[in-house]
């Protein structure tokens, strides 16, 4: 049985919150995408990412919390989210891999920058636009049309392994592209 949501709202039994919902809504709207992406990046599946994003914001909101800068908030949220993720791993009795998560955080900072905005995605989009030929085709077929490797192979006249390595090489190319653009 699931809990019955909304039940406690009636007839003044709810514990009135002293927090300001308007602010919370804004905080969530600003940072939720980043937190969710980060959780997915760490390895959470979609529904776990949904749950943990929610728990992250709830837990942050329950503690005294002052916003210094957007970047600091994003970083703080990421830390909380990472802890949430670690806890969820523990709960499922999976060996939490702290080292893995450290590397993940490092990579995340390296490519997305300190801030919690979609800048890196814009960069990636630019790099993708610059791409053409079979590499671009493979990316579109795989990510846009969600075709299997076998189907892509049939269209591009490649073996499945060929498709796999083409996609991997293309992703590497895009990464170099992001690195270059960020350096400049």
């Amino acid at each position, binding site marked *: 049985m699931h809990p019955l949501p909304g039940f406690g709202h009636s007839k003044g039994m709810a514990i009135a919150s002293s927090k300001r919902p308007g602010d919370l809504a804004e905080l969530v709207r600003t940072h939720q995408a980043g937190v969710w992406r980060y959780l997915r990046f760490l390895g959470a599946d979609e529904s776990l990412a949904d749950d943990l994003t929610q728990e992250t914001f709830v837990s942050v909101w329950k503690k005294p919390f002052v916003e210094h800068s957007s970047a600091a908030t994003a970083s703080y949220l990421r830390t909380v989210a990472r802890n949430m993720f670690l806890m969820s791993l523990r709960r499922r009795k999976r060996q939490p891999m702290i080292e893995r998560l450290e590397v993940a955080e490092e990579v*995340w900072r390296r490519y997305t920058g300190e801030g919690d905005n979609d800048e890196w995605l814009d960069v990636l989009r630019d790099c993708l636009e610059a791409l053409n030929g079979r590499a671009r085709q493979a990316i579109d077929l795989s990510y846009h049309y969600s075709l299997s490797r076998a189907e892509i192979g049939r269209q591009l006249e490649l073996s499945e392994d060929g498709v796999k390595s083409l996609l991997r090489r293309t992703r590497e190319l*895009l990464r170099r592209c992001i690195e270059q653009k960020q350096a400049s």
Partner: protein
Amino acid sequence: MNQREELHEEFADRLIEQGLAEIAGNHRPPDLTARVLSAVHAPHYDHRRKATALRGLVLAATVALMVAVWLIDQARESTKRVAAVNLPRADTTVAPPPAPATTKEQLAVLVDEFNRLMNENRFDEAEIVYRRSAKVAPDELVVLQMKNTVKMVARTRKNSPIREPAEQGQFAALQSVEQSAAPFDDREPYEFGVLRGRYGEVDDDVRFLRHKGIVDQLYQIELSRIPTPDEPPILYPDRETWRLLTGRREKYLAALVGRDSLDGVRQAEQTAEQLKLPVTLNYKQSPLSQVISDLEKLSGIRMDLDEAGIAEVSIAMDVPVTLDLAQDVSLKSALRLILEPLHLSFVIKGDGLKISNARVCDEERLVIRRDRYSRILENPFLAALDHPLSTFSIDVDTASYAKVRRYLLEAGEMPPPDAVRIEELINYFDYDYAPPEDDAPFAAHVEVTACPWQLKHRLVRIGLKGREISAAARPAANLVFLLDVSGSMEPEDKLPRVRRAMRMLVEQLRENDRVAIVVYAAQSGVVLPSTTGFEKDRILAALDSLHAGGGTNGGDGIRLAYDIAQKNFQKDGVNRVILCTDGDFNVGTTSNAELERLIEERAKSGVFLTVLGFGMGNHNDELMEKLADKGNGNYGYVDSEAEARKLLVEQAGGTLVTIAKDVKLQLEFNPRLVGAYRLIGYEDRLLAAEDFNNDQKDAGEIGAGHTVTALYELIPAGQPVAVPPVDELKYQRPASLTEAAGGDELLMLKLKYKRPDGSQSLAPVVCTVHDAGQPFGAASADTQFAAAVAGFGLLLRDSQYKGDLTYDAVIEIASQAVGSNPHTRRAGFADLVRKARECATKP
């Protein structure tokens, strides 16, 4: 690369992949704002659920204590059970909660408690809390809500243990269906007993998977069939209600079937019930009639011994019966034990039993006939201007007449319309056409007269007569009897009749003729290798040794029979497979199409085919006619000894010796004189105009002495034609009449054929026909008789072209034609028409 760098690579790649999924795949993060807000504001948010175990224990104890206190207060019977369960958990060291002051506060605490218990899946306790809340404030909205929740939870909990295994079972069943559908390698079909080298193992694996899948599937289906729980229990109505229901049911049934038959049904039911009576029997060499009359007295059931039926299988009424039963058996089993060794059986008739031979009983039991006929769509009238040519293949089959006769005389019912093939009715009879004077294999005779059922129409009779070959001049025969000995052939009118018919044929054989006998049932085998007419005794002995049993795999038998015929092929002789069957092929390579192809292929070797049909009940007329057609053959239906004699003795020449094959007729009508025409019968023998000159196109055979008759009904030009006119053509002018059309030629007849061993048609025989305006009364007796038979067919089929014809008119015409004709077979025709008249007027 060290491990950390590898990890770095992995995450970097994952990040790009994630970015691509979002940019290219449009896989955006979800908007969780509302969810977060509601989570923060909901008082029973998750963090409570994640409260420490200690806190949970304390709370549980509190609740239990509260319940206990409340129990004492209220002394409510219904909650005792739950409380008793929970009492041991109560920790007495925990102080009871302070009593809340107002109703509202009290309620708030209860609701909170309720939510918590629900979250912890402690539904029974939650229900108690709800009951308390209902005490405190029964009309509060929130309490009503609690009530609904409790109800819903209870219902869901009751259903889920049923639904879950059912769903699981169904899913598992589907999964094993998937498994059992493991493909089968059709390129090398599995043959029993044949080792396959390396492919054999693969096949075995696949087979194993399939079998396992099927077994799993059955098991899962079993599992998913969780029965409905008996809650609420089914309430059976009392006796009185049942009685009323039964009365109403019987009233409707009686209205449906009539009072009498209902009584009959009820009697039969009673009799069947009485047959369960346990009996102990001990007989030693007692006469059958004595045993049966004892049983009659013992059980009180009337038992009629059908003397004729029993005599038919050569069983005397006082045949000794020995039966020693160690224990009680039912009367039914006892009867079986007595009758079966004697090839007898019994059938319930109303309040008694009828004891007779197995065939009679089978027929009594047979309610639904399974005979199969292909649909016949009658030829329509065609306008001579639009369709100047009419082309068809001859047909010497006669089976339909014998079938019709059997329906009318033996079953006493009208034959199904599709069993009536008019050309076969007409060709059943002999006609006195003059045989050819020259070397030609046959002669053609045409007569034109008035049409007896449409006096303004004209009737054209075309008669072919095959050259007669005397028995002495008959070429040496190489025959293979292919006999169906499957279980369905057991009745008296099947295998025993086949045996007698083949005997007749064998009696006529000469020393240089050969006969082989192949039988088929579930398996086929050679009963007699090709044996010359010197050893008639051996042939007859082999025939006598046949008995019926098993399934029917016609395909293999046919192959074997053709092999033997080809091995003993007689050049310039008669090479023929004679297939005797009830036409029920049910095992092996017997898709009908496959059988037809097989026979069509084998017919090219020069071996001809005769198909003789026997019996009724599961007779596949359609298939047998097709087989004869494809196999350069003829098809007869043997409904009696007399019919066997006609086909195999009197007309043995025609049945055995083919004098011309692929005989085709083409008529061209003169549109100046003929408005429209209609070919009567031959529906499945029609050919396209261009097939006439196509030697590849198979057509009918004609045997020595055979006569073939075809009738056309013509509507003279100028008379109203029931054919809708075709619109005038835009790009062509209608063909203008030739000079020849100006003459008084009614039509031109062209005939084409091949010699029996030839593959090319000879030059066509052509003749022209004039209409002298002869009235029907002046027509030859042959034409009159053929018209009468055709008319009979139209009536039986209830044809739309029967005009004002009646059975009486048919009898009148036929009796005149019989008078001047020596053939006695025609005399039986009038009797048959009378019987049909009787059957047709029956309700």
